[in-house]
Structure formats: C-alpha cells, structure tokens
C-alpha cells in the first residue's frame, strides 16, 4: 500500500516525535468537557438519586417537593425515560425495580449543583427489599437465590437467556480435538480455580457531558464519551430525533480504558436537556464513578490441564464465568475473555465453556483487555504450577507449547504475527530469572516471576479519514476516533507527515465532531492505529493522486514519474516545482471549474478502511478459520519483596516486552507499557470493591487505592522492550498495544510471590490481608504437620 514511488527511509513514522497535544496539556490549555461549561451561561446542572439497595421494588417515589424547590428546572424518573433500551448504555433510570446498589432512581436539573443536590435530598422513595444475588457462580444456577431482572435478556434479545438459567446471559463453547483422549494420554493432570476482583477503571476525568437542546428540536452534545458517531446514533435512536439534527463533539478525554465505551451520562443528560429546553451538564462524582459507571468484569476460571512428562500439553478443559453485574450492556457470553486462553498456546484438545452471568452488583464491561487479563491470570499461574510439577523451568514449558507463526490455534485460525515467545525470552534474560534472589535479614523476602499473554483484536466497524492539503503545503487531518490520552492525534499527524514528506509542524489534526470529521466507530480493541491509521494513509494517497494528476499537465510528465515531497512536486530526473504553483489564482478570464487546483481551495483526500470480517463459528464447537483479526502479545517479569509479617508486597523491578507490530512512536509505546504496568500493579495487589449487602463501602480514592508513585518501582527499574512481529496489513506493519500491557503483570507478580515465600495465591488482588492470611494458614498447617 506504500505511496512512496521513490522509496526513502521513513522520516517521521517510527520516531519518538513529541506528542502534538503535549504543549496544550502541560500548559493547562487543553480543553476537556468540564472546561466548556463556562461557555454556557444559564447552564443547568444534573444530580441523580441512587438506590442504596442491591435489589428492591420501588413502592413509592415522590418528587413533588423537589420540583417545587426554587431553581429546579426539571425532574425525571424512570417513567419519563424512553422505553427503548440500547445495549450501548445501561437503562437510564430504574422503573419498577432497582437491580444494583447505585442504580439511578430519579434525576434533577437545577440552576446550580448545590440546588440540584438539595432537590435530590427532597425526593422520597419507599423500597421493598427483594432477594439479591452477588456471586456469579450462585447466580448461574438453575434456581438462583434471585433473578437479577426478568427483563434483562428480553431487552437485549439474547437468545441464550433461558428460564432454566435466568441469570445467564450467554454461553460460548469451544470443542477442539478430543479432550478425553488427551487427558487419557497425559502423565500429569493439574486442576485449579482462579478468580479476579471487581475493579474500577479510575480514569482521572470522571464521565462528563454538556447537552444543548437547539430551537429546531435537535441537540448538540459535548462529551468525553467514546465514539462520536456511536453516540449520535444512540441518542437519535433512543429519543427518536432526526439523525441530521444530532451533533456530537468530543474534546480531549481524560482517560477511559474502556469505561466510556458505554454511554452512561449522555442519555440522561439528553432527556433532561429536552425537558428543560436548555443546556445541561452532567458530570459524575468519583463516588458515582464507582457505583454507576462501568467496572472490570470479575472472572472465575476453572482450569484443568493435562501434560506429558516432557511438558507437551495434551489437553485442557476450562470453565470461565464472567460476572456482568447488573448489566444491560453486558459482554454476553464470555467469548472475548476466553480468547485469552486460546491465543498463546498450541492446545489441540481444548474443551472450554464460558458464561456471561448477571448479578445484583455494579455493572461491568470493557476494561483494558476485555476479560483476557482475567483469564490469562489463571492460565499463566497454571503454567508455572505445571512447570513446577514437571520439574521444568517455566520458560522451557512455555517454549514447548507456545504457538508459532503459521500454526493454527484451537479455534482453527492460522496465526500471522506472534512475537510472544521472543518477548518472554527477552524478559527472562533481562530479569535474570535463572539467578536466585539474594535474601536479606528481616521480614522482607525477595522473589522473581514471569508470565506472558495475548489479546485479540476485534474486526469491527470501519474507519474513515480525510485530509485537506493546502497550497502552502500544510495538511489538516480529519478523523473521529478518540483521543483518550493514548496519543492517537500524534500517530495520525505522524502518518500524514510521513505520507506527504513534511515536518510534523505542518500537520494539524481536527478530530471528533460529527458535523466536520468523517465516520469512525470508537477507539477500542487497540485498533486506532491499525483501523484509522490505514484509512488515513488511503486519504493521503487519494489527495496525492489528485495533486499529481493536476501536475501532469503543468510538468508535462506522466503520472508515474511524479512525486510530492515536502511541498515540492518532483519529476524523475528534473528539478521539479513548488506545490503552491499548482494552485491557480482567481481570474474572471480563466475557467474556475475543471480539474485544475484553485488558490484557497484545499485538495480533499478521503480514505475508508474496514478490517476483514470474521467468519461465523459453529455454535456447537466454536471453530472457525477467522474468529478475530490479529493478536498483540506481551510478556512481563517482576522482582518483588513480600513482608512475611504484614503481607505487604513491594515491586522492585518490572521488565515488560511487547509485540505491538511496528512501533509508529516508540516513546508513546513505552508510555503504554509503563502505564499499563502501573495500572496492573493496582489490579494485582490493591484494588477491589468491598461490599456490605451489595453496597460498595470503599467508594472513594481514600479506601479504594489506585497505584501512585509510592507503589511503582523507581523509573530506572522499569524497562520496556519491543519485540515486534510486524503485521503485513498494518500501517508500516503496526498492530496495537494499549490493552496488552496489563495482561502478564498479575500472574508474573503471583509467580514471583510464590518464588519468594512458597505460597500460591489464586485470587486477586494479592492484598496484604490476603497474603498474610495465607502465610498464617501455611504456618498453621506446617505446625499441625509437625505435631501429627
């Protein structure tokens, strides 16, 4: 797909150029959604009354007092909401029943946040408590203690939602080879159960939007939600608004990690804007971010592995239970999470069931890796346990079973690009896995561990991009994918600069406005560089073609001999001419239509890219030659200390290797690695929802601790390594990196803890409490053993 007819080495792509948004962000000039509020005098502010009960019937709901409070503009309840429910968003407000502690019951728009809050406190609700179910394994039984909501399945039209298992939202089956025969051949069989906690994305900017009801019945929305076109579609659909009258604008986003793929503020804000016939803003509090935004899917994984003495895995059986919470927007059948177990190892006989289950807990959804880290947590701990049982090194065992390029995975896909073993080898070498740790006196015990993993890319949607090439050689890039902090604007600018052979400073990115920028889905599944990047290359080439076409006449040269480099048209073997000279000035004596380029009128190039679609799998076996698109891979090694008196863990060193395909901007890839590593430290040793009767009791940064500098190893002790296996159809061979960077961290930490203190912990997080409890249990068992 290269546009460079006269190949030269890349000038910008592959270089760690500074981020295009760096200056705006460090100077505090970048505009986030909440910054725009000051542009709207007379803005109304929204507050929501939320249920304290995990499951209850609303017996009485009286908003009359709230409505009478001076300064209140509009009050709404479930009765005012559109009946339609989209799987892209949770139900706007509860109707007859609340199904998790934190679900919205009523909402107010008022002249100030304080008045709105006061009004909320005047609303009277009477609840009748109903049985609730919090545990996914209990919830999935045929006669569960509670049915989360009879309507959930119907809303989504999920075919697998049956009366026999009323909380099961879906079931995916993989049946590869003959698992019974495999286990019969095995010399050793290992069975374990692993679990992960519910955690919050904790992106620093809470969900926020501003919605303005326009006089013609349309609306404009400024939001930090992901995917402007998806929101446009959702809002026009929910409220029956003309699509052409809904405009969605996306300023910078202060993080998402998958949270803002679900649109949990926009619909309510639209409802209230329409009712108030004005402009409203709705910004979640941090508490609401815990109670009523998306959370990471808690997953329970049962895994049974059979292996030969030489380490060859001959059979694997898994049952994966994905807790969707009280979700209308569930990931239905656990297939995406389960993919974490398929994409790394060569397992010919694989029998796997994954289930999506509803519980009366805060709803869950996409979170950096979409379930794959939770499943890899089980697989990678299991691999270390298996290695120990076999008396093999964990590296050797993985080397023996890892998928290699050109081989088929258990789905039946042929793997095109896989650099995972190379990642692990580099990590093991860097962390000196073979050398035992030197222990020091005192309660801290040192240990090292490694793990690896992969993440599928979903072939979804299509991306469009446009470029405007101006006569002075500057280029505007127009696209609609998100900039949630990962650097998509910089990557797009690099791609355009590369294509036109111009310095970065001559590219300006315009992004995320449905009235201006062309269609895209959203930034998910690590695909922005791949999807939107490919579309943008096409757009650049389209503009280039138009320019060179215009040049053929002026230069009297055939198209194939022409190239555009840094604002100059170059003809093979001649000095060429300036781009600007192609643009003709206005004159009443020359025809203004036609093929020639006009001064003041940019050349507009357009590109559309859609990934190759998946091929439907057999519902009984899950087998297909194309389940996903491509896979990113990674490996992690850590060195840590465990305090045997308090159970605390400190990470001393982290080494992380990634196969993201070709790195368009190495520094930003390092950023993804360091950020993902830090985030994973939180998920591994600190973060969990703590409940009392289903109500979260630690919903603040004070009691729900996310990692800070304190928990990160020193900068010099974190090392990022690239081990790319370039993907032929990616731009310059790029794949993606954002989601993979958490996957291997938790199991590497658990494996290092085992190395340090000989205790295997199978449940996340490895909090000080949990670690100490296991140390005490072991001490007691060892003593009982001595005394018997």
């Amino acid at each position, binding site marked *: 797909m290269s546009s460079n007819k006269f190949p030269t080495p890349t000038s910008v792509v592959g270089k760690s150029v500074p981020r295009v948004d760096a200056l705006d962000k460090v100077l505090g000039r970048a505009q986030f959604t909440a910054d725009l509020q000051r542009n709207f005098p007379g803005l109304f502010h929204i507050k929501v009354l939320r249920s304290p009960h995990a499951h209850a019937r609303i017996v009485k709901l009286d908003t009359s007092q709230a409505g009478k409070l001076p300064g209140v503009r509009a009050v709404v309840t479930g009765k005012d909401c559109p009946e339609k429910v989209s799987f892209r968003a949770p139900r706007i407000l509860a109707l007859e029943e609340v199904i998790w502690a934190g679900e919205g019951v009523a909402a107010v728009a008022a002249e100030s946040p304080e008045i709105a809050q006061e009004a909320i406190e005047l609303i009277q609700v009477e609840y009748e408590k109903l049985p609730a179910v919090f545990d996914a394994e209990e919830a999935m039984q045929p006669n569960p203690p509670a049915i989360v909501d009879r309507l959930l399945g119907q809303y989504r039209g999920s075919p697998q939602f049956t009366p026999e298992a009323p909380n099961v939202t879906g079931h995916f089956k993989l049946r590869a080879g003959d698992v019974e025969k495999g286990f019969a051949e095995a010399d050793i069989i290992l069975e374990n159960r692993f679990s992960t906690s519910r955690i919050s994305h904790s992106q620093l900017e809470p969900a926020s939007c501003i919605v303005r009801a326009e006089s013609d019945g349309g609306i404009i929305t400024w939001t930090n939600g992901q995917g402007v076109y998806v929101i446009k579609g959702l809002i026009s659909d929910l409220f029956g608004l003309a699509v052409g009258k809904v405009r969605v604008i996306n300023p910078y986003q202060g993080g998402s990690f998958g949270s803002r793929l679900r649109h949990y503020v926009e619909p309510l804000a639209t409802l209230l804007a329409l009712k108030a016939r004005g402009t409203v803003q709705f910004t979640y509090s941090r508490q609401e971010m815990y109670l009523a935004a998306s959370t990471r899917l808690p997953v329970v994984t049962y895994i049974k592995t059979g292996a030969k003495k030489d380490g060859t895995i001959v059979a694997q059986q898994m049952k994966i239970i994905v807790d969707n919470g009280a979700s209308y927007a569930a990931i239905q059948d656990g297939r995406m999470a389960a993919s974490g177990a398929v994409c790394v190892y060569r397992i010919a006989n694989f029998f796997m069931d994954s289930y999506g289950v509803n519980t009366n807990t805060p709803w869950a959804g996409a979170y950096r890796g979409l379930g794959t880290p939770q499943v890899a947590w089980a697989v990678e701990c299991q691999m270390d346990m298996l290695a120990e049982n076999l008396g093999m090194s964990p590296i050797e065992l993985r080397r023996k079973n890892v998928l290699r390029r050109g081989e088929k995975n258990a789905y039946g896909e042929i793997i095109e690009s896989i650099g995972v073993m190379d990642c692990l080898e580099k990590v093991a070498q860097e962390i000196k896995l073979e050398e035992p740790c030197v222990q020091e006196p005192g309660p801290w015990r040192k240990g090292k561990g490694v793990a690896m993993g992969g993440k599928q890319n979903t072939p979804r949607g299509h991306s469009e991009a446009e470029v405007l090439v101006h006569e002075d050689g500057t280029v505007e890039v127009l696209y609609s994918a998100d900039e949630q902090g990962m650097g998509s604007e910089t990557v797009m600018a690099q791609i355009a600069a590369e294509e036109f052979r111009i310095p970065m400073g001559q590219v300006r990115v315009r992004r995320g406005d449905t009235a201006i920028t062309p269609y895209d889905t959203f930034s998910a599944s690590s695909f922005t560089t791949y999807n939107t990047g490919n579309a943008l290359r096409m757009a650049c080439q389209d503009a280039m073609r138009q320019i060179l076409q215009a040049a053929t006449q002026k230069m009297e040269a055939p198209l194939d001999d022409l190239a555009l480099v840094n604002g100059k048209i170059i003809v093979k073997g001649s000095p060429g001419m300036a781009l600007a000279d192609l643009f003709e000035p206005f004159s009443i004596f020359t025809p203004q239509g036609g093929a020639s380029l006009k001064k003041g009128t940019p050349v507009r190039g357009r590109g559309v890219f859609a990934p190759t679609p998946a091929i439907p799998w057999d519902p009984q076996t899950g087998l297909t030659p194309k389940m996903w698109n491509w896979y990113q891979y990674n490996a992690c090694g850590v060195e840590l200390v465990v305090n045997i*008196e*308090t159970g605390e863990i400190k990470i001393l060193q982290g080494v992380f290797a990634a196969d993201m395909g070709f790195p368009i901007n190495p520094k930003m890839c390092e950023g993804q690695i360091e950020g993902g590593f830090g985030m994973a430290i939180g998920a591994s040793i600190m973060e969990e929802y*703590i409940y009392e009767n289903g109500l979260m009791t630690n919903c603040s940064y*004070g009691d729900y*601790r996310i990692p800070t500098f304190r928990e990160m190893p020193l900068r010099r002790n974190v090392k990022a390594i690239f081990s790319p296996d370039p993907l032929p159809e990616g731009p310059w061979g790029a794949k993606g990196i954002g989601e993979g960077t958490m996957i291997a961290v938790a199991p590497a930490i658990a494996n290092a803890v085992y190395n340090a203190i000989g205790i295997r912990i199978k449940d996340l997080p490895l909090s000080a*409490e949990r670690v100490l409890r296991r140390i005490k249990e072991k001490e007691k068992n060892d003593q009982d053993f001595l005394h018997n």
Partner: protein
Amino acid sequence: MRFDFYEPTTIGECIEMLTHFGQEASLLAGGTDLLVKLRLRHIRPQAVISLGVIDELKKLERKSDGSLEIGAMKTLQEVESSNLLANEFDLVRQGAGCVSSIQVRNVATLGGNSCNASPSADTVPALIALGAEVQIVGPHGERHLVLEDFFTGPGETVLQKGEILTEFKLPAPSSHSGGTYKKYAIRGEVDISIVGVATRLTLDRNHKLQEVRIVLGGVAPTPNRVRRAEDMLVGQDPREELFEEAAQLAAEESRPISDQRATAQYRREMVKVWTRYTLQETFQKARQNHHGKG
C-alpha cells in the same frame, strides 16, 4: 445546604454562641474533618462557629516546671516542626507528622484531631503515652481530665453543650525515657491508620523498666492503653522475648472491628507486629537517653 458563619475572637464569646445554638452549631477548627462531614451530609448545622481568630487557643509554651501547654488551634504542621517539642516531647511530633500530607497538616489542628474522636486519630496515642491532660472550658467554667478519659466512643467525647477543648498539658517527662509512634496503613501516612501504636518506656537506675505506656489507636472504639501488657513489663529487665510477649498481650487486649480498611483479625495481627517494633525502638531510644544523660 445553608448555614450562618460566626467568627468569635475570644473563648468567652465563642462559648456564648455555642450555648445559644446548642446542638445546631458546629465548631470549625482546620475543617479537615468538619468539611468532609458537611459535604457527606452527615451533619446539617444551622451555624458554623470558627475558632480561627481566637488567639488564646494558639499558644505553645514550656512552663518552668518543664511541663508544656499546647493550644487546641496549633496546626499539626506547627506541632511537627516545633523545636519546643523536640527531644522529650518528640512523640507528639511523630504523631502529628503521621497525619496525611503537608497540605492537610498545614490546616488541621491538634485540638481537631482529638475532638473529632476518630479511633484512628494519629496524634492521640502519642499524647496519651505522654500523659496529656486536656483543659475544657464551658459555660460553667473550666475542667481538666486526662486525655484517655476524654473519649467515650467513635466520634464521641465528654464535651457537654457549650464546651470547647482549649489546650493540652503535657507533664515534664523523665529524662531516662524514650517514645515512639508507629502508624501502619496500606499507603503510609497519607492513608488512615489500620493501627497506630505509641509506646513510652522509662528506665530506672538499674536499666529496669520503671514506667511503661503502650497506647493503641484504630483497634478499639477509642484510642486506649493496654494495661495488662504495660503491667507485665514494669519492673522487668528489657528483653526481646518480653517485648514479644507484651505485643501478644496487647493484641489480645485490643478490640478491633472489621471495616473496609481491614478485618479484625488482620488488625489484631498488626497490633502484635507493630507493638513489638515500637517497643524495640523505644527501648533503644530510652537506653541512649540514659547513657547520654549519664
């Protein structure tokens, strides 16, 4: 929420206002606890009365008898960095230095930390270990009591309608003593204590333990001394095994609850660990002071 804001300039004026509003008033010191409660709607006062401009509450004085008086409105930052509090009174500085971040300590007060009556207040175990007394002034005059008796439960004190805590009095400590406060929290001092342990040891001429104070925070409804552990040590030759035994006793005497920060079992285990460490460290300090002073 709306309330009226008052700023009396003398203790007398303040007590008059307090008496007038009764239950409907809240006192404001640094506000680092009060504002959180207001925001969470835990309280809805009609009047907020600030102690901020009452100079009488801001003293810090060493008396001729070696005792020390600290006004309730001294900020934790002033306490932590005061030279008057170095050496013998260093325990108070340690406690104050363990409260959150410098930003919080710059406004939070010593009086507020006690009056808020959180079981895990970090300055309280240290103050109790030093034998602190509080002075309380109210419509019927002033009264004094030891700080340990000031607390009646989580968030509850002996303060009656119209009363304020005006100052802390610390008796002159023996020179042959040492004191240590250790806070254990998941995230160190910026976090709320799972357990706080203050110990103070005084050695007699023969290096035996003459006086022992072990005060626990965060593991009972109020910060309190663990007297069985203290009594067991008094008169003994300090030894590693003894400290371990005392730590075990302290753990048994503690009455922790389970909450979102830790379970009761974990808290009890941490009492054992941190009591042992504080005793060891305190003994080293007491011994040094003993040698140092001859």
